């Protein structure tokens, strides 16, 4: 059985012209994605590769998805969004830490207790991406100097137009997060109901 290379050499010797066109985009991607190419480990596609919710995405899909994302830098104790703000986007923690508060944030976030602290690779605000005209029900503050990667509703709309497959996969992944959270909430509600029943029986 002859290899692809042997076939190509044979065709060249015979003077057979190939009708294949060169896919410049694919060549560029392969050049950038090769192991010998020194790229920073901190690029967005490399980061997205490490996220479990995006494990179904190919390298090319992650690279295309990263074009629609925004990098936002926050200083320590800077407010990312307040409770009641319009919800537009979904964030991944690229670097740093984010504290989530159940109350409205004034100028002194230090005195409040966070309900949750998120670290690198964590995500938040998924319903802001899926639902139109909603507001945030919690506040988010950068605990330390933080870099977030965000994708917003306008980006999702454009992604649907430009790369519908990637958009569908992203919506499926984000919906999985929402479903998981709903399941956890249902489990907690069931637990609390059992506790209440126990207390009532006592």
């Amino acid at each position, binding site marked *: 059985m002859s290899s692809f290379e042997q076939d190509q050499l044979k065709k060249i010797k015979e003077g057979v012209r190939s009708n294949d066109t060169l896919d410049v985009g694919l060549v560029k991607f392969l050049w950038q994605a090769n192991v010998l190419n020194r790229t920073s480990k901190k690029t967005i596609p490399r980061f997205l590769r490490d996220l479990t919710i995006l494990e179904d995405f190919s390298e090319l899909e992650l690279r295309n998805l990263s074009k629609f994302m925004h990098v936002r830098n926050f*200083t*320590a*104790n*800077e407010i990312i969004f307040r409770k009641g703000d*319009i919800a537009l*986007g979904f964030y991944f923690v690229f670097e740093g830490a984010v504290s989530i508060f159940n109350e409205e944030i004034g100028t002194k976030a230090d005195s409040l207790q966070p309900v949750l602290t998120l670290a690198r690779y964590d995500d938040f605000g998924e319903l802001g991406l899926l639902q139109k005209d909603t*507001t*945030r029900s919690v506040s988010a503050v950068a605990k330390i100097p933080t870099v977030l990667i965000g994708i917003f509703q306008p980006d999702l709309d454009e992604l649907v137009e430009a790369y519908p497959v990637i958009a569908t996969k992203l919506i499926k992944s984000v919906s999985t997060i929402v479903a998981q959270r709903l399941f956890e909430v249902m489990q907690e509600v069931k637990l609390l109901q059992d506790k209440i029943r126990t207390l009532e029986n006592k």
Partner: protein
Amino acid sequence: MSAQDQFRENKSVIVFIIFLIGCLLVFFMVPRITLPLGLAYVFYLMLRPFKSMLVKIGLPSTLAILIVLAGTTSAIVLPVIRGVALIEEEVVNFDYNIPNLEKYAKEKYIVTRQFIKEKIRIDIGNDHFQNGMNFVVEHSKKIIASIPQLFASFLEWTFLTPFFLFFFLKDDRGVRKISLNLCPNFLFERYYHLTYQFNKKIGNYVFAKFIEASIIGIIIGIGLILMGVKFPIVLAIVAGVTNIIPYLGPILGAIPAIAVTAFQFGDFQQVLPVCILFLIANTVDMVFVFPLLVSKIVDLHPISVVLSVILGSQLFGVFGMIISIPMAVAIKLIFAEFFSNGQTDEI
């Protein structure tokens, strides 16, 4: 937040405000850049769906943009080249035709004056006619004299507009990211939401107006061809384009057609079918096209529309009347954004 971080945030706010003010200043004070840039933006909003369609069928992005640009440039430049030849002929004949037009108008005025004197027994005199004719002749000559300058501007736009349009279509996200990267964090989501909504509404409005103008133009073009009126295509284009101006547009569009008909046939009775044609076209527009396409997008009270048009004309003349509705939509969006309450989401 430390003092250094606070200073950094304040600095980013100031830079962003300077950027916005700078854009507004350029918009108002440098029309040589603003007008082709604005035109390129309007074309970008109209042509973006066509580019997406071509990319979806497998064409490379750059090739799709070049095809769209070539099609648009041909569709605009070829009629203009034809129009230049026609206008040149009319300008050459203008000086010769003015005394004939004046004589014709004077005869009609004498007949009308006699009719009014017999019926109402009031002699209106010749002053009104003389003042009117002087006004028309003076302003017509001014317009003719400004045509070379208008063509020079038009030639400049013919090069600049496709140039800007190519980069809008090629890298619209890149252009938008410039302002988004400058936006401070606390304003980012709100600003992005506003600009996105504004682009969407303006895009839909431009597309709807384009469809509306095309429908009006086609109805009037077919009607004028059937009536045998001269320059039916040019008059149809003028009627379609002037229809963009709210309320006054249909009247402004009808005036050239009525004038051409009156001078071609030398009889005002021939003008009546042309008026009926414009009435039919605008009725179709008001009853079917406007409610279905435009009003849902605009979502403005009719009083707001009238006030915007008056304010636009006061500030920027005809151009102001055209952009008054999109600007009113933008202002309404900004107010709605700052005073709206959405439903709460759960994280």
